[in-house]
């Protein structure tokens, strides 16, 4: 039962001070969550704190390995639009 930070994390420090169980550590190449300490904010907050402030879609996974913030959920950019824009930039 734990959340997980993956390599799309940009090391912005937002999550670290919020974790009620002290499970988040700054590290290289990116922040990480100590699986043994993370209790998914159970009994502390309704929502997982790290996932509620993280600005990067996909950087935090829940216990099932599913992005807590899926593509488009934070930026409001429809994923298809994002893909099209990135493809256009690459082809320049």
């Amino acid at each position: 039962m734990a959340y997980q930070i993956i390599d799309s994390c940009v090391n912005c420090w937002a999550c670290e001070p919020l974790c009620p169980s002290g499970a988040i550590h700054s590290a290289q190449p990116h922040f990480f969550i100590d699986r043994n300490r993370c209790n998914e904010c159970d009994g502390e907050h309704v929502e997982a704190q790290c996932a509620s402030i993280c600005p990067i879609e996909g950087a935090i996974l829940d216990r099932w390995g599913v992005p807590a913030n899926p593509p488009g959920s934070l930026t409001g950019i429809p994923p298809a639009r994002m893909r099209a824009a990135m493809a256009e930039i690459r082809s320049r």
Partner: protein
Amino acid sequence: MQLPVIGRQVAQPSEGGCSASGCGGSSDHLSHLPQSIRDKVRDHPCYSEEAHHHFARMHVAVAPACNIQCHYCNRKYDCANESRPGVVSELLTPDQAVKKVIAVAAHIPQMTVLGIAGPGDPLANPERTFETFRQLSEKAPDIKLCVSTNGLSLPDHVEALCQHNIDHVTITINCVDPEIGAKIYPWIFWNNRRIKGRRAAEILIQRQQQGLQMLTERGVLVKVNSVMIPGVNDRHLEEVSQVVKAKGAFLHNVMPLIAEAEHGTFYGVMGQRGPTHGELQSLQDKCAGNMNLMRHCRQCRADAVGMLGEDRGGEFTMDKVEEMIIDYEAAMRERAAYQQVALATLEAQRKPAGEQRIPLTALGGRKRTPRPMLVAVATTGGGVINQHFGDAREFLVYEASPMDVRFIGHRKVERYCGGGSSSGDGESVLQKTIAALAGCEAVLCSKIGYEPWEMLEQAGVAPNGEHAMEPIEQAVSAVYAELVAKGRRRDAAGEEIFLQAGT
């Protein structure tokens, strides 16, 4: 062609009153402010257009976390509130930041203000921000401290800001209407939850306004920044301006949205355009009212070091700073000496209140009033024209009229020279530069090459290298008087420069 000269009597720009030159002229930009604020901002590089030729500020990036999302920001890069997007700052610990500031202050006596801005929101990282301020106010008491914030947690930190003797606070306020806010801010983090939509904007707006009021009640200088987003808040910003000034903000600064798809921001990817120079200028005119002293804001990079858009950051990377040995006591004495000289220069260049910059006799005693004209200037600082056209990374734009010369803004360009062959062909860079100078009718620089000279002339911009090392405003008025005297300038529509008196 020759212009009709009707009579020989000296023309008045308009009848009676103080419009000719009285009321301090608009180049004494501070005349409308109460004395206490005037004293604070008069020699402040961030607020006084004149002062920023002689003084500089720097930023350190110590506070990367943020508690909101703005649609013009991609958090993989810096905070767009205070910096050009797409340039990542060197993230420093408070100890490192203090070392760096002291090193810069010891080497660049012009550096008088230290700001903590993006990336991130300094007040969403209060420990790191206040630790930096605490150490600096102890170790470098001659440096003014400032902070920029999105405002969400501002009310919680007003007391701490007062305790640390913060010189001024910048709040980025893009709206006072939550409907509009919902189109600018997709979410905020508030009371342990992520909140989206209109409710998020409502909370943010309430907190910004509360923070603004708390600060002004305590006598702290507050500047408000707004990002102009055409079709979203452009019409709304005049109202924002009135609201924030009524609450005591001493300055409202409108900045253009910068949005490119490659920044990966919502606005960039969705094709939201930024304002044109003209749109920005006319909104700035409306919002500034008589507070037009902030036109020189350069949205400097968060960790920029140096003056006037130059960046000497490369000389002060952390590994270099760690090796420096600094006697700050001695540095402080040198800094004080430099600043005294700079202040004297500033005072000498300052136009005496009420004096007319362009003598009307120089305009040939015509019955008609010349219309205002935009003039671009290349300078590296010091308040004089001292930069080669091809070296300029930006041009300062001044508006010359028979009444005054006033600073309008700056236009960023790519350097035409010095890029070597790697930077692609000079011609297209030059074309971009000329496009960036749209609306300007003359460009003043210390020197200019033959090729750009020709292209500028073709584009209807008069190149001029005859005023090298002269004070900017003096040179601009001289060139204006010259062009008017020649009487051959036409605007884009082929309209003559002269307007009927009184129109």
